């Protein structure tokens, strides 16, 4: 937008006012477009913060994460465009899981406390390959939360390019903060290379999902159907991602923004029947402010009686 948003003769505005006016101009340019809710913004920003802090801790434990984040908050995140997708995908997945958990019915209570003994699984029995692979998916998923249970991005799950870009941005900040002496710059450069190599060798939820899918073989459809029934969405996403040979975040975003009509094709490689997809469709339909491709139509219905 090249036009000025200020009337002539008005003093130069404060940066805050400029930002507000830019936002307003964008809004007025497309008032009917769906926008991020406060919850989506807050979740994504929190995820970005935890990711930046985790990456910084890997690069150099001496970095003060609060100072780094505060400055980036003020000036804007250097890799904003690059990390927007992963943060948004993780935030949307979290909203979906939270909603699903809150809507599920309260757990059944065993009418006879002692009866629970019969239903209790055997502890300490030898794990089958399938069970071990499933456990690995669970562990990889739980690494995607911080110690307080907030959604986060596990570093092994990060795309290599994004991880490297973040390392470089943080290293640049660190250099500017302390000094630009050549020795420190070289040390940071070494750290970037070492951490990039280390991260490339790590495996996250996508790899765990691929291993689980591989060991399931022909039983993958049953496992996916069971995950749907249990609302075990991370396992479902991991299986679908493996079946499509896509990344986990990529698959999560595709699923969370899919129209109902697109669901069968998303799960086609898992050979799920249409009935099995109904709970996903119902659960996604209840998620507010979802960025489906026909969002404008959903959020601003033109048909139907006005209320």
């Amino acid at each position, binding site marked *: 937008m090249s036009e000025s948003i200020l009337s002539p003769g008005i003093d130069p505005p404060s940066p805050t006012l400029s930002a507000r006016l830019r936002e307003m101009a964008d809004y007025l340019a497309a008032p009917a477009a769906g926008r991020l809710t406060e919850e989506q913004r807050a979740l994504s920003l929190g995820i970005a913060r935890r990711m930046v802090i985790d990456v910084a801790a890997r690069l150099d434990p001496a970095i003060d994460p609060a100072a780094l984040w505060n400055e980036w908050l003020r000036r804007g995140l250097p890799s904003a465009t690059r990390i927007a997708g992963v943060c948004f995908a993780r935030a949307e997945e979290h909203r979906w899981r939270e909603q699903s958990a809150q809507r599920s019915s309260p757990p059944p209570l*065993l009418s006879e406390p002692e009866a629970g003994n019969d239903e209790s699984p055997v502890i300490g029995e030898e794990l089958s390959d399938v069970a071990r692979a499933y456990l690995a998916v669970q562990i990889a998923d739980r690494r995607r*939360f911080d110690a307080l249970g907030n959604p986060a991005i596990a570093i092994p799950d990060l795309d290599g390019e994004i991880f490297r870009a973040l390392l470089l941005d943080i290293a640049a900040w660190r250099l500017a903060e302390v000094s630009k002496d050549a020795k420190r710059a070289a040390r940071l450069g070494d750290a970037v290379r070492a951490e990039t190599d280390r991260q490339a060798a790590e495996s996250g939820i996508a790899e765990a999902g691929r291993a689980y899918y591989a060991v399931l073989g022909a039983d993958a459809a049953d496992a996916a159907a069971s995950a749907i029934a*249990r609302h*075990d969405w991370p396992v479902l996403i991991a299986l679908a991602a493996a079946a499509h040979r896509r990344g986990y975040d990529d698959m999560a975003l595709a699923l969370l923004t899919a129209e109902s009509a697109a669901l069968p094709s998303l799960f086609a490689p898992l050979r799920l029947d249409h009935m099995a997809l109904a709970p996903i469709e119902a659960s996604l339909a209840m998620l507010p402010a979802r960025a489906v491709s026909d969002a404008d139509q959903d959020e601003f219905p033109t048909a139907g009686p006005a209320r």
Partner: protein
Amino acid sequence: MNERVIRGRIDRSGALVSADAPLLRLQQRAGAGLDKPLALPHLARLVTLAQRLHRDISRPLYAADDHSDIHALVRITPDADGASLEITDWRARPLVQPQTPAIAEGAVVPQSWAWECDQQLRIVALRAAPDAPPVPEGWEGRSLSELFELQPDDDGRFPVLRGLARQARFDGQRVRAAKMAMELAGEALFDATGRFTGFRGSAVVAEVPSGGEQKTGALVDPAFGSLPLSDPQFGRRIDGALRGPLSRIIATAETISGQFDGPIRADYARYAGDIAHAGRHLLGLVDDLADLQNIERPGFKAARDEIDLGDLARRAVGLLGMKAEEKGIRIDAPRTDDRAPAFGEFRRVLQVLLNLLGNAIRYSPENSQIWIRVDREDDRATVTVADQGQGIDAEQQAVVFEKFERLGRTDSGGSGLGLYIARRLARAMDGDLTVDSAPGQGARFTLSLPARDGG
């Protein structure tokens, strides 16, 4: 808001003959089932009320079990063959948010690890709070009992194993891990099909006893370990530990007392009635203690809602009118155009009024009258509850707001905390609660709050 309507049907004998899944599940969790007497005491009372009044009633419904507090609105339509139930706005609030991905419950406690295990007690998550000792390497997939060396409690039991058998929350499991004494607590987790999927909880580093020099004044309860009353978890624990079992005791005792499963000897039925009564008393005490723990927290402050004391007084009468009616007591409530706009927290003021009105009903003679008046004096809005009970003398008035003060009464009517809590709440809202009484002349309790103009 959950717009779904949950329906149920009660037959003439008070048995639940049909119910949508959430209601049926609650009935089952209270130890009953279909074609069994309604085992939810509050709902059963409302059904009885609707049947006695021969008209539809709509009331808030409160129920609780081991896992959650349930708040809903119920509409009861009585007819010749029983009553129909329509429940809306069903909100199940987990006692300790077990379903959120937050393993946070323990992690916010200093010196703790947050952990999660699957149904076979294999660890799938283990993280240290920022100030906690680091978690051991290689925990992934290890058995909980391998990672944490379980130690029996004073009764020789292992709370975690009991929790596993019952698929329910546990706490107070003493363990040793990484050469530290710790205490485990965990919430049971369930998936959408209701299948038990494991536990999520905290491992807190146990405090090292300081050379036998026990801090004086620290309240240590054998049932809750070394958790002092001031610990924010105390209220939650006491809720979780007592509310579910008590609700079941009450429901079962009421079933026996009502002779729903066939006639029994009258004195046995009476004993069961006594048990239910005592259970309800204990449940009230649990509520009071949880409140006490909350309001005695340093910095406790109530919300400043715009309220109308006239409206709240009428609500209180609506909720306790039935109880008064049972004793033939007439309540003279403020008229609908009597208003006293004030500032105070809506639910807390209602709680105070329910306490005052409940006491007035409890200690008033049969076929007497209770008056509730609202007024404004300068910058104070007031509501006064006056009864024709035996009254209290000046000496008793001086102590009536003390903790556990029951003025020498030994019946099972109250915990002796109600007025103490009520006054604390009133003062937390920048108001006060006072009493004016003389022996033989009834008592007048006045709640005053900052007045609000207009409204």
